[in-house]
């Protein structure tokens, strides 16, 4: 009961919602970049929200289902084709053994997710099946997917259960290639000069080629801090926007290091992380400040949507 990576794409890994409780040891959470996409397709399939999925970048792997199963794709739109017929994201499909899944063209977003009913049974490490590439553990042998890899289904009856269905567009993150994401101020925002404080929200930033699951380097007119230098290292978070010594920003993503000492200018709100997580080199981003209370309200709004969807899928 498995699928076969017939032809590996780039940067394919097994991920779930992350590894928690070990950041004090320098072990980052990892996990899927676009967690809302993962939760949605898992709920659609009747899975635990944190069931393991395959995260794919473009070009994505060519995959052969070696057993009948039910699956769904979410996140980036790589124009999926099942046995050469076009299929869509955000809906569940039942397939027989031998069916082939391909992703011929990138339309929108940079990370697509494949979930199967019952989830994948990949290496479990410290409470998570996410791949930690630095430590070489978790997921599929602690590394990127390679041609010939087999990923087992956790449930031998993956084909049978779970409702068929489609996810309402209203609860799918609004992806774009130049989104404005909402942020709350970081502790060192006021260390920027008055001009740079104004510029932060006004300018647009390009995602540089130097961007990966650890972080996105942004390019823009440099921002200037009143006092130069670093701050005493402390924990940082997924979505933290730091100011580098050259005046450029870096946004910390899923595989970020646990601690950092660059000034924290802002934090992308959890609600908008999926939108940021779908960006890649050449895309743009802009920031818009909201209050912490608003950020929390947007978080709860999403959780209500997901809770309703969960009930609907039962």
């Amino acid at each position, binding site marked *: 009961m498995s699928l076969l990576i017939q032809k590996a794409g780039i940067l394919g890994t097994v991920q779930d919602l992350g590894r928690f409780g070990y950041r004090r*040891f320098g072990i980052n959470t990892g996990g899927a970049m676009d967690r809302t996409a993962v939760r949605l397709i898992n709920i659609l399939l009747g899975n635990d929200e944190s069931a393991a999925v395959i995260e794919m970048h473009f070009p994505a792997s060519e995959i052969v289902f070696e057993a009948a199963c039910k699956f769904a794709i979410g996140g980036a739109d790589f124009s999926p084709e099942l046995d050469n017929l076009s299929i869509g994201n955000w809906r569940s499909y039942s397939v027989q053994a031998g069916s082939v899944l391909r992703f011929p063209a990138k339309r929108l977003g940079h990370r697509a997710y494949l979930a199967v009913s019952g989830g994948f049974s990949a290496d479990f490490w410290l409470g998570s099946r996410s791949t930690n590439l630095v430590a070489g553990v978790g997921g599929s042998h602690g590394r990127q997917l390679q041609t010939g890899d087999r990923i087992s289904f956790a449930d031998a009856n993956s084909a049978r259960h779970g409702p068929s269905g489609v996810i309402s567009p209203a609860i799918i993150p609004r992806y774009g290639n130049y989104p404005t994401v909402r942020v709350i101020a970081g502790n060192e925002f006021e260390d920027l000069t008055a001009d740079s404080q104004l510029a932060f929200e006004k300018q647009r930033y390009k995602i540089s080629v130097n961007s990966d699951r650890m972080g996105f380097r942004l390019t823009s007119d440099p921002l200037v801090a009143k006092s130069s230098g670093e701050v005493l290292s402390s924990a940082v978070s997924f979505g933290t926007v730091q100011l580098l010594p050259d005046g450029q920003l870096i946004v910390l993503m899923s595989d970020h290091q646990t*601690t950092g000492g660059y000034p924290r200018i802002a934090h992308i709100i959890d609600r908008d992380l999926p939108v940021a997580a779908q960006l890649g080199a050449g895309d743009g981003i802009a920031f818009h400040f909201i209050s912490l*209370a608003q950020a929390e309200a947007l978080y*709860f709004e999403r959780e209500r949507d997901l809770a309703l969807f969960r009930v609907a899928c039962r």
Partner: protein
Amino acid sequence: MAKRPPLFIPLGDSALTVEFGSTISESLNQRAINAAQTIEELRFPGLVETVPAYASVSVFYDLVAVRRAFPGYATCFDAVSAVIANAIASARDSPSGQRAPIVIPVKFGGESGPDLDLVARHNSLPAESVISIFVSKIYRVYMLGFLPGFTYMGELDHRLDTPRKDSPRTRVDAGSVGIAGRQTGIYSLPSPGGWQIIGRTSLEIFRPSTEPPCLVGPGDRIRFVEEK
């Protein structure tokens, strides 16, 4: 000396940092580690994890569980701040557990410590003195970060103070013991790195198959011994 009350700083919308100060000192670090322990023992509803650092502890939480348990606050940040402030204030100020120092054997110089001579030259000392000064102290693990199991330790004797390399090595071997300013650290895994490497231990610092997966934790004390 009067203790500054800690600052509560949002770290995004699902975490906050309790900051006790902005300098490297054993007492601030001990306050951060004690606070982390107090919060872990309290296990308030919604607590995900604590991450102690030099002079702060960051607390990650689940908003849905916090809101359910503490509905009376304007924000979850306010609720968690209040719960933590209260717990820290009423916790006894215990000194560190004073576990016996963890002994780490190190081979200095040569292939194991390619920067030993550079550190010696930089500080106008013979290499043997760098080693004897280095092993004469017990170091405190202020925090872990950078890599799984990478230890930030201090404080290095001022006679060994050496800046990071201008351009980092593309690969530092696992077990390498490095110096950066007044800090020392052990590369728990092979990695790119800019610290001056004076030696290497054969002890496995990061052990993925054990629980916890690291030989040392925040607040531990380390004693290096020379392995000939």
